[in-house]
């Protein structure tokens, strides 16, 4: 019993620790005067946002989308293309990102969600690849080479996002907001339906609920959130590339979610962090880092049930 209480305590502790770590990191980095860590942490948080959105549909709705990176790319291209045309304001680019990603998710989701299991995986992959090849063929916007942005999104004419610290905390705030939003949604009536449909679609039909519209809504919301991650990524790199939406990226996102522990948003954040840190560290140690990275991921999936979060909390989840 004491063990259970202890692991529950640790489960509650994890979200707090994540918040504290990302919240204080720039201060600590400032002490040792290391700018790389801040840049890197921005990247980690951006992918954490995307991973949280994928965790919403994958972990709670059992929708294994293999095309989730498409939304990162769509968000990035929306910001990039607007900038190329002289539109830098966030109050244009943010709604535009949400609309573009929401519409793409609505159309592709409406079709994909007619299928299940491996067919759903393949059809989302196909839509993702469609988006990817469309981006590579946008010759007016860099095609294969991508698109350089000559600045960052502006907020009412102010270029405050060009300040590294401000940008860091904006990304941090978005991560916290998205995290809160997704947690709130899974604990709502909507979330009950989503999680019920994961367990037995037949049961939901039998009590009078058609899960399709709820699944589609979750899919669209997840797509829009990943689009915001893409918009932030474009700003972080000041560059937009078709590579953002390649299927490798979609696969990486799935890995982040599984690595962190399915069915938890703090797990998704841990997974994104763990994945990118390991990739970064290993790629400095050896050129053939994938030879180590690949088997490591396989081991975590096979033996680390509950992922990184499960290793920390001994199985209990909260958040």
């Amino acid at each position, binding site marked *: 019993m004491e063990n259970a209480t202890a692991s529950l305590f640790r489960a509650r502790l994890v979200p707090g620790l994540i918040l504290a770590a990302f919240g204080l990191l720039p201060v600590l980095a400032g002490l040792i005067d290391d700018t790389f860590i801040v840049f890197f942490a921005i990247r980690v948080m951006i992918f954490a946002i995307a991973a949280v959105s994928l965790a919403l549909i994958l972990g709670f709705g059992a929708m294994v989308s293999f095309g989730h990176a498409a939304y990162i790319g769509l968000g990035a291209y929306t910001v990039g293309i607007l900038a190329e045309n002289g539109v830098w304001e966030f109050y244009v680019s943010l709604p535009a990102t949400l609309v573009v990603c929401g519409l793409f998710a609505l159309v592709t989701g409406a079709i994909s969600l007619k299928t299940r299991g491996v067919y759903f995986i393949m059809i989302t992959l196909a839509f993702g690849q469609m988006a990817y090849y469309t981006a590579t063929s946008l010759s007016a916007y860099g095609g294969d080479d991508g698109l350089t942005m000559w600045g960052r999104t502006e907020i009412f004419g102010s270029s405050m996002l060009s300040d590294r610290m401000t940008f860091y905390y904006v990304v941090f705030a978005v991560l916290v907001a998205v995290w809160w939003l997704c947690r709130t949604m899974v604990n709502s009536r909507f979330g009950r339906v989503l*999680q019920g449909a994961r367990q037995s679609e037949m049961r939901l039909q039998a009590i*009078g609920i058609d899960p399709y519209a709820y699944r589609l809504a979750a899919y669209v919301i997840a797509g829009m959130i990943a689009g915001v991650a893409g918009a932030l990524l474009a700003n972080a790199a000041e560059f937009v590339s078709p590579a953002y939406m390649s299927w490798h990226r979609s696969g990486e996102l799935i890995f982040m979610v599984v690595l962190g522990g399915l069915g938890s948003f703090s797990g998704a954040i841990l997974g994104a962090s763990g994945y990118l840190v390991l990739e970064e560290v290993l790629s400095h140690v050896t050129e053939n880092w994938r030879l180590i990275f690949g088997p490591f991921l396989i081991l975590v999936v096979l033996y680390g049930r509950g992922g990184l979060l499960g290793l920390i909390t001994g199985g209990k989840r909260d958040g």
Partner: protein
Amino acid sequence: MADSILRLEALEKSYGALLVTDRVSLDVRPGEIHAVIGPNGAGKTTLIGQISGSLQPDAGRILFEGRGVTHLPMHARARAGLARSFQITTILPDFTARQNVALALQAHQGHSFRFFRDVAKDEALNEAAGRVLADLSLASRADIPAGVLSHGEKRSLELAIALATAPKLLLLDEPMAGTGREETDRLVEVLSSLKGRYAMLLVEHDMSAVFALADRISVLVYGAIIATGTPEEIRNDARVREAYLGEEAA
């Protein structure tokens, strides 16, 4: 005619050359328990599937409260008041018993596009779910995951979920399947306490349960109904005896 809550008119369904539902007509009156019995492979579950909407008949009509529901999807029939329990327990194993029932209640309180309020703190909903569970003696088990309930408790929960949808007709597909003597007796007691409040179409293997509960019984053999009548009439029906004896001889 008009006073039946459910009416099947000449339902037919085949799987390839195999006729599994052969011009089945029957009706369930308000407050009545109408049992369907028959040997294994008689097509009982296929029939339930067509009534609940998980299967489509090839021909014939299904009328629920006088309204044609033959082509309505399952969830729409459930909303209209047709509640199905499953032969193979179909509960949501990761949810607690209370959450299972609360979801069924929620399904009948309008749409669930409500994103912000924490449903675990919805006192009205959770208390209502608690009352349904208490009716089925599951109150003490309300907050443990449904997946770890005993088999008998899962069967009771299955019934609780169906009742939570405020049904007009309970479609019970072998509610006693796999339960021990004691559990069966308890479920018979529960069902007879519900008798009169809900119309029920009961498909069941347990003959003593059927004869204890049913007002009328229909006997299904090779997809066709060979007899319908009171328990007394069915007990004395020569064709029914033959069908059952024939099965045992084979």
